[in-house]
């Protein structure tokens, strides 16, 4: 019932985008709110160029030239939010269509494990953090990382400034919140590197996916994603001042900066099909290429991507989504080797931590080195080749994040 409505809505949005493209119209006309008209115009020209060029690159030239449109599905890790903006943008801006794809973006849920959905054949592609997907792979899921969209980890540990927690060594004797369920290994690696024993030197407490426990003083440092929970505390009112909490009120430890970051959102594919099914492999290349275009679009059109995500029925407020979009961009750009490329060093660091870091129960993410074929850069490279003549910037070397002001409750 609702799915039909969303499908109708999606169809409507896509149709709108098509009409806009056909009229050679300003892409942002349907989603105003762009503040600086000059830059917006420049961005639009760029994205339109990219749009047309992408259409040329795709097999036949224009939309009508698609001999067949392939339907593929993508499993997200959670509900619609800016974390997945690039895919929604690729759909909204018609990039998937240009590559003769009809993409069904499937929302996640509490018990939905994307890589399991993929291994079960319920979806064609799935987003997953690398360590979790590798653990599923070790348990028998025949999946492969075909594009490392997030180049950096966005996990933080957030404490009140007066708690004096500015690096992992300060965790000693403190109560530290973590999410468990495989989200805790960066924390354990950081504790280990600081020379602390997780069993005796710190008190570890399971934490909800919110920041209530930190604000309530139940824990001294809370786990947070840059693009979500950290924004939540900055959207909450400080009862002492009556104003929102300010960044100065907190100290933030970034696991990426601490050198224990593990690779996060990546596109995973069915390894067996990728090796033996040429049609699927071809779809994978086109899907990755169009998704990359979506992410470059979101890099250059932060406001527009926020609007696209909000229009997709996200239940998070607009300033929260803009913050999230900006923070997600920071995890992707600049992409030193090009968007999607799986960097061997970062991969090895992820695998090493997965192998060597026991959690409280003494379990590591992996018990042995991943077998061959856990990732490939071939798909990414072929996708780049498809995008070569568009001239779109796949590196974002001069990417600059924007400044986002959060409002109460993410309004």
């Amino acid at each position, binding site marked *: 019932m609702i*799915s039909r409505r969303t499908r109708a809505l999606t169809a409507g949005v896509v149709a709108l985008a098509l009409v806009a493209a056909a009229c050679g119209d300003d892409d942002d006309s349907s989603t105003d709110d762009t503040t600086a008209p000059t830059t917006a115009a420049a961005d639009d020209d760029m994205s339109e160029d990219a749009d047309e060029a992408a259409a040329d690159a795709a097999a036949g030239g224009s939309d009508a030239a698609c001999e067949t449109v392939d339907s593929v599905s993508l499993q997200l890790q959670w509900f619609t939010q800016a974390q997945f903006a690039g895919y929604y943008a690729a759909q909204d801006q018609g990039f998937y269509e240009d590559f003769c794809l009809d993409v069904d973006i499937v929302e996640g849920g509490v018990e939905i494990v994307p890589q399991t959905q993929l291994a079960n054949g319920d979806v064609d592609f799935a987003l997953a953090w690398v360590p979790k997907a590798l653990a599923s792979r070790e348990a028998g899921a025949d999946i492969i990382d075909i594009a490392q969209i997030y180049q950096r980890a966005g996990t933080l540990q957030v404490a009140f400034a007066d708690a004096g927690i500015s690096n992992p060594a300060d965790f000693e004797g403190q109560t530290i919140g973590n999410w468990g369920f495989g989200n805790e290994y960066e924390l354990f690696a950081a504790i280990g590197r600081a020379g602390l024993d997780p069993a005796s030197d710190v008190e570890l407490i399971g934490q*909800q996916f919110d920041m209530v426990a930190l604000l309530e003083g139940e824990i001294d440092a809370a786990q947070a994603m840059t693009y979500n929970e950290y924004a939540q505390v900055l959207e909450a*009112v400080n009862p002492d001042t009556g104003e929102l909490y300010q960044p100065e009120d907190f100290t933030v430890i970034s696991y990426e900066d601490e050198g224990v970051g593990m690779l996060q959102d990546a596109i995973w594919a069915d390894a067996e099909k990728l090796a033996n099914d040429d049609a699927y492999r071809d779809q994978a290349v086109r899907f990755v290429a169009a998704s990359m275009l979506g992410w470059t679009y979101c890099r250059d059109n932060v406001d527009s991507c926020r609007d696209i995500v909000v229009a997709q029925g996200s239940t998070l407020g607009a300033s929260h989504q803009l913050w999230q979009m900006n923070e997600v961009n920071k995890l992707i750009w600049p992409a030193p080797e090009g968007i999607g490329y799986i960097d061997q060093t970062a991969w090895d660091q992820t695998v090493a931590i997965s192998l060597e870091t026991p959690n409280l129960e003494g379990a590591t993410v992996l018990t042995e080195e991943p077998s061959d074929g856990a990732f490939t850069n071939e798909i990414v490279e072929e996708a780049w080749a498809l995008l070569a003549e568009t001239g779109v910037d796949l590196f974002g070397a001069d990417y600059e994040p924007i400044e986002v002001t959060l409002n109460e409750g993410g309004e």
Partner: protein
Amino acid sequence: MSLARRAARRSLLFLVALVLVASMWELYKLLGPEDGGEIFGWRIIPKTNDRAMPHTWEMVSRLGEPEVRGRDEPIWQAILGYGWYTFRMALVGLLVGTAFGTALAVLMARWRVVERGLLPYVIASQAIPLIALAPQVAALGGNWDLPKWMWVSTLSAFLAFFPVSVATLRGLSSTPPIALELMESYGAGWWRTLVTLRFPAAVPTIVPGLKLAATAAVIGVIVSEISTGVRGVGFAALTYGQRATSDPAQVYTAVFGAALLGLILFGLVVALEMALMRRRPAEAVS
């Protein structure tokens, strides 16, 4: 007349109870410790600050404010939308569960051997946690390309069938022997006896089972929504709950929605009960 008066009195009592609960909440909030407390080292005394226990009027006034701050749709409208979706899935679940539960009960009442063989499994089925089952059923639904609401309703039916089948079995097998002997003397067969005697005589036992099933059906839908991301009241409760950091009252609006759904389904069963009981001879309504 008396029916109307009884309905009026019931609604009044309901309101009084509601006000009582709300005042107890506010009273504890007023008197209880701001930061909670411990008993024998166990942190079991709830905190009373505004984040842990928002004021009841804040929860209610939140209903009139937008769902997503900065947008137009007020939360009560959003909740009604989610609720209508959840309600339809729960209703389908209740109907399917009732049909399935009744069929099982009839089979078990007809052949003792089926009862002995089946009943342990019926009971064991309820020991499976729904959150463990939901992703499996979701995966199956995905394989068969079923629309999402269909397998959510299936899970709801899975919870709802149990009280129906147990209550119906109980009702069908406790028909007064005298009445059974009378039917026998008429030469009525088993099925004939079932339809004209056993079922009507079992209604007072079946109805409580149906009432349990009505709330179970709602719970089934909500739990499935939370674990698999279908957008009904359960989804609202989950996403609002995650915003507790800056907006602690919001999650209670979803709780209101869920409670209302349970009440409505329960009310439907009560209406059915009244319709069924009205035609009973006075001496059978004990």
